């Protein structure tokens, strides 16, 4: 029997499938998260992010596939997995009849006690949370802070954060990203699920893009940003037919005006585009690098198109 406890991988998922009758929520997810990294899990609502996390905690049972969290199979020893995980649910709901402190004490008890309350107070101070107030009187953002504190307060080796900045103002969002970075620096692994690209961009080392229950790409966050995807604005002196531009590989026409003004999305070098328009007088050309968000959206746009042609395309991986 192989001992996975010392594995370099904090999370190892193979062929994870989850079906709800006719609905296939996960369709063979493969994923590896290394110990000590902040891993982004990116996808729109309904892509399967929460389902994947809930399978990792044995809150729901996979239809097929295998999972190891910190070397442990959550279906065989869920308590051991949960003992090492700090979890923030995407839809956080707390007992309205308790105060924030009461909730945290209760959750601490469920973990067997032992939380460092000085650290808890420190977290509350950093997140600007009054722990004496009743949950029912808290705003969504303040409840989210309670959720964040309970996830971080035991210094767990693995943090599963599902949409951690939901409901928080920008200042607090930044504080959460700082907490995440600090946890990583202390050796924890952070699994950061979100549909907000900017925060994934700021917080994660690597990320996976999930779509319709499938991982479509796993790559270092920087490689997404460094992709040579750019926006190009062209202004012609003489009319240039749309077909000329659309025929160039890697070029997508986003906007067109009287065959004189174009906004294009270009993936790869500009050289083929420049060669294709040599017969037309170019009055102006402007380029700009795409943000992760644009990369992501472009990716999804492509994916939608590809999905229509081939719904069984496997994931590509860049390391």
């Amino acid at each position, binding site marked *: 029997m192989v001992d996975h406890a010392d594995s370099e991988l904090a999370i190892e998922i193979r062929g994870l499938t989850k079906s*709800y009758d006719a609905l296939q929520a996960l369709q063979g997810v493969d994923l590896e998260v290394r110990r000590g990294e902040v891993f982004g899990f990116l996808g729109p609502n309904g892509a399967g992010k929460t389902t994947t996390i809930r399978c990792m905690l044995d809150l*729901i049972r996979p239809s097929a596939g295998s999972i190891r969290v910190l070397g442990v199979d959550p279906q065989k020893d869920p308590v051991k997995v*949960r003992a090492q995980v700090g979890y923030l*649910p995407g839809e956080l709901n707390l007992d309205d009849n308790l105060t924030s402190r009461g909730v945290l004490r209760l959750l601490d008890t469920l973990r067997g006690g032992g939380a460092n309350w000085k650290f808890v107070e420190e977290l509350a101070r950093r997140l600007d949370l009054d722990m004496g107030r009743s949950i029912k009187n808290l705003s969504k953002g303040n409840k989210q802070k309670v959720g964040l504190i309970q996830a971080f307060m035991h210094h767990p080796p693995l943090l599963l954060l599902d949409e951690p900045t939901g409901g928080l103002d920008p200042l607090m969002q930044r504080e959460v990203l700082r907490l995440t970075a600090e946890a990583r620096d202390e050796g924890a692994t952070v699994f950061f699920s979100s549909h907000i690209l900017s925060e994934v961009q700021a917080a994660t080392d690597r990320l996976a893009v999930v779509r319709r229950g499938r991982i479509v790409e796993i790559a270092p966050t920087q490689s997404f940003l460094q992709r040579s995807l750019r926006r190009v604005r062209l202004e012609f002196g003489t009319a240039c037919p749309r077909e000329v531009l659309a025929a160039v590989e890697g070029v997508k026409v986003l906007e067109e005006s009287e065959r004189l003004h174009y906004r294009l999305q270009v993936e790869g070098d500009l050289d083929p585009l420049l060669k294709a328009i040599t017969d037309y007088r170019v009055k102006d050309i402007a380029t700009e690098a795409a943000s992760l968000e644009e990369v992501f959206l472009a990716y999804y746009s492509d994916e939608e198109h590809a999905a229509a042609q081939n719904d069984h395309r496997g994931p590509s991986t860049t390391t």
Partner: protein
Amino acid sequence: MLATLRYTLRRLLLSIVCWSGLLIGFGVLNVVGFDYVVRESIDPLLELVESLPPPLKALVGDPNDFITPEGFLHAKFFLTAPLLLGIGGVLMGSGLIAVDEEKGRLDLIAAYPISRAGLFWGRSTAMLAALTVIVLLVWVGLATSAIATGLDLHVGALALSCLTLWAAVAAFAAAALLFSLVLPSRILAAGAAGSLLLVCVIVENFAPTMPFLDPVAAVLPLHFYQGGKAMTEFAAAPLLVLLLMTVAQLGVAGYLFLRRDIRVIGEGVLEVRRVSLGAAGWIGAYALMVLIVGAVAEPRGVHRTPEEAFAAAQQAVEQKQWDQFVACLTPSARDRWTGLMIVLGELSRPDDSPPPADNAAWLTGFSRSQLQSLLKGASGFHEAMRHVDRAQLEPYRDEINATLAGGGPPSDDTLRRIARAAEDRNALLRDSLAALAKLTQNRIEVSLEDVEVDGAVATGTLSLMGTTQTVGFQRLGGDWKIDLPVPGASSTQPPQGL
């Protein structure tokens, strides 16, 4: 599990306070009400019930069951309490896990290092503990008010009744918990379990007048609820059935909870497979219950046919269990026989001067002096007469003497009026029959034939030592009882040579 138990109990605190308050208030009202309703008007009440037509009488049940403190509490409190507290139990059971699921709280709690089993059994134990606390408080409230008002109730026996109440409510709470794990929402689960509770109450109430409901009533949980009757004739087997049913339902619910997904907000999906599994589990729990009932746990004191009532009476006589024999009789028969025993007691009092006529042949063929001599051998007979308030017999003294002198059996009406002198009719009858039984060691051959049932009444032919006599039966509260005539009644052919 302990942390879960404590947390759940704390959440149930408000329910504990509300339901125990409601039940205690209701119970205390009934204890106090006994004085006003019954003590002041026992005889008019009995006459009223006696005057009812058989179907209505069957619905009302045995009036002796509510002229005693135990019977009154059973009829007025313990028959309603399962419905009241049952609603509380259903709400508790259906919300125990489903509420947290529907509100999305369980997703976080279940992600903590506690096992599913620990979570389920921690919460289930807390629910049972909450019901225990409620019933315990109700018992304390009833016992305290009974003591304060001088109601002759044994607090230990009262505890047995409360125990059966707890068992019945726990069974419905467990059913609600099971339903909440297979149905898509807490509301549906509470509705299903609440409907079951209501159906049980309705069926149990109407079965006495509608015999076709008997088979249905026999397999419903409330059939095994003893309530106030446990104070006088507690039986362990029906209680065991309810307990087993609770355990079985919790077992199935726990099994389902361990295997199913934790739902989050908006995932209220009706899964046919899960519903089928739950239904199979519930039916299985019921089948187990019915099997046990069929084998060992037939509730005591319930006779579904006149023949069953007769056989039970016969068995009680053979085993000299006179309490059970008395319980097999209709209230009229009990009064009739109590009156007869009092007459016998008066007849055989050693300190009394002989009545004018030495004529007691109507009864046994013995002369009065022979009877007097014979009853001296029935040790305990005269002690049984301690239950008679002789001062109350004075208005009937002439009737008693006239009866003795008249050579015929007293009429039912006379005997019933004479019976009113007994402070505790059942006890007098039990003790005097026990004493008379000592007169003979011979087995008395009795048989019942030609039983004809007509709605809530029946007749049959009783053969006893060469004589035949028509005997009546009445169906009271779902239970057939024997309307046994006294010896020497007009239909009896007197034995020769006795």
